């Protein structure tokens, strides 16, 4: 990464009074005094940036050069699935027929958009083994909440007031947060020696208070739980439902389906599985699929087809209601639809195959240098630990993550999952070449060597980035949350 000579000023601090980046003809509309009440009038001018066009363009170009993204280099952020987003999907979503439509347009004028939602639902249902899917949730965590509200509505409709949701100790933090948000008591299920659900411990926790079990499979260790059928039977036996956290669906497409494993509710992260941009790159989408027993509770409207035309179906008397305005983040759905259509069934299968192959390739090379707590074939990601480096050289995982920046890579997810000390969670995704993977392996091996030979060097990293080691403690304890003029 090149040290940027840019002078770090904010756009408000650039330019000069009266300078502007536009030139408009004089207004030919007479000024009108709107006679606003005194207390509603602004006392001072709003303090907008006053810069020329080149200043403006250079400012934002300089900022963009400080970014690291999948378009610049490798980004093995475990669980987040930072895969490359094909540009053709962006181009298709930007077509005026998609980008320019208004949610209040009558059905007959948006038949194409409705058809796309309808077909997308069919694709997602097929991929997951579910019966119906709602596109409304605006992100993965929102999908989780929607899914658990569906579970709650299902039990209540049957006159049951179940109070507990079970969540493995390796789960994404959103799982317990979701369950708590939906009013459930969260009960943690321990993992066994192989990194899966401890079935004996689960048995003890199961009773008629359990509304459901939330599970990611493969889990956050990147390991597939082969006991899933046993687990599903156990949960169903006490009347509970199985919720599939779809964050890791990119590992199993075309090989197995949550529906076949026994799950009742699924959420998808379109950005992780079907290559739409992540948060910050635009809005998200977290569609939720369900088995037929839960269909009556889905948010309204669903898109249906009467043989001639597509229409919004509001006829779901037990619906939990809307979870988002209109029909979800439609543009994101278009991008994922384009991705699915361009790859096809065989292509999606290959996505999963390559994601798993890449992860195992990295794991096989790195386990000689870093402690691997669960040494068996992984799926799309794996977790190694900086334990050896910490014990032998006093170098922590955080230090090694910072050092990776000097080698031009985004670090993996660190200190998660919580059940692995000094965790590094690495997910290469299917979109990386062998050359890129080899470069990353090389950097990691160098860092392992540096930890032994020059530990102090790693503890001070990064050195080549625009900003060096940040004081994360001060940032959390005394955050400066806004810019103040003249400070």
């Amino acid at each position: 990464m090149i040290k940027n000579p840019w002078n770090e000023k904010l756009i408000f601090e650039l330019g000069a009074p009266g300078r502007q980046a536009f030139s408009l003809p004089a207004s030919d509309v007479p000024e009108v005094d709107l006679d606003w009440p005194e207390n509603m009038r602004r006392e001072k001018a709003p303090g907008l940036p006053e810069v020329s066009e080149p200043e403006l363009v250079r400012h934002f170009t300089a900022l963009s050069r400080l970014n690291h993204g999948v378009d610049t280099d490798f980004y093995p952020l475990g669980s987040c699935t930072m895969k490359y987003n094909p540009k053709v999907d962006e181009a298709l979503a930007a077509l005026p027929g998609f980008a320019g439509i208004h949610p209040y347009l009558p059905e007959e004028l948006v038949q194409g958009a409705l058809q796309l939602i309808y077909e997308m639902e069919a694709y997602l249902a097929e991929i997951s083994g579910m019966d119906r899917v709602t596109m409304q949730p605006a992100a993965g965590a929102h999908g989780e909440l929607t899914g658990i509200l569906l579970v709650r509505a299902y039990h209540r409709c049957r006159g049951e007031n179940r109070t507990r949701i079970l969540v493995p100790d390796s789960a994404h933090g959103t799982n317990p947060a979701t369950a708590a948000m939906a009013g459930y008591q969260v009960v943690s299920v321990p993992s066994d020696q192989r990194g899966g659900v401890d079935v004996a411990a689960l048995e003890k926790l199961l009773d008629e208070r359990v509304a459901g079990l939330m599970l990611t499979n493969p889990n956050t260790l990147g390991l597939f739980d082969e006991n899933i059928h046993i687990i599903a039977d156990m949960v169903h036996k006490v009347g509970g439902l199985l919720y599939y956290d779809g964050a890791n669906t990119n590992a199993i497409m075309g090989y197995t389906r949550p529906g076949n494993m026994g799950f009742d509710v699924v959420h998808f992260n379109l950005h992780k599985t079907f290559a739409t941009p992540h948060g910050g790159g635009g809005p998200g989408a977290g569609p939720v699929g369900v088995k037929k027993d839960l269909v009556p509770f889905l948010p309204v409207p669903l898109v249906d087809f009467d043989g001639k035309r597509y229409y919004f179906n509001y006829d779901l008397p037990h619906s939990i209601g809307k979870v988002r305005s209109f029909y979800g983040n439609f543009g994101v759905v278009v991008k994922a639809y384009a991705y699915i259509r361009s790859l096809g069934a065989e292509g999606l299968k290959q996505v999963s195959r390559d994601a798993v192959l890449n992860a195992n390739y990295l794991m096989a090379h790195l386990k000689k240098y870093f402690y691997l707590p669960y040494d068996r074939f992984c799926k799309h990601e794996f977790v190694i630990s900086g334990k050896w480096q910490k014990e032998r050289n006093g170098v922590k995982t955080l230090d090694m993550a910072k050092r990776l920046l000097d080698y031009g890579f985004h670090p993996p997810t660190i200190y998660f999952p919580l059940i692995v000390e000094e965790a590094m969670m690495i997910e290469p995704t299917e979109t990386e070449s062998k050359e890129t993977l080899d470069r990353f392996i090389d950097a990691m091996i160098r860092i392992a060597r540096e930890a032994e030979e020059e530990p102090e060097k790693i503890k001070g990293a990064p050195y080549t980035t625009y900003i060096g080691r940040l004081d994360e403690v001060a940032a959390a304890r005394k955050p400066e949350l806004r810019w103040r003029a003249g400070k």
Partner: protein
Amino acid sequence: MYPADLKYSKDHEWIRVEGNRGRVGITHYAQETLGDVVYVDLPRAGDMVKAGESFGTVESVKSVSDLYAPVSGEVVEVNREVMDHPDLINKDPYGSGWLIIIEMSDPGELDNLMDALAYEEMVKEG
């Protein structure tokens, strides 16, 4: 690192018995594993807590973790100082970094906890 006069839970809390009451905090191992603590969320005096259940959260730059009550009872005192200065948990986990005092409803629960030796053994095994 693990004072002999304390009892320890598997969730890395310690308790110091003071008559019918118990003063509760997190262990040296817990604070070291968490890293710099930046925020603590504690119950209010008068709240009831149950052994093995969460009574608050502790947040470090790495993660947010639940705090688990080693015994059941009523919270009679909360360490205000540690809420304003969470770094006390790192600096002095068994002293000024204590969290709450519980009026124990069942002192018999103390028998479910570990002594210093057993806890140290557990931590070593990881």
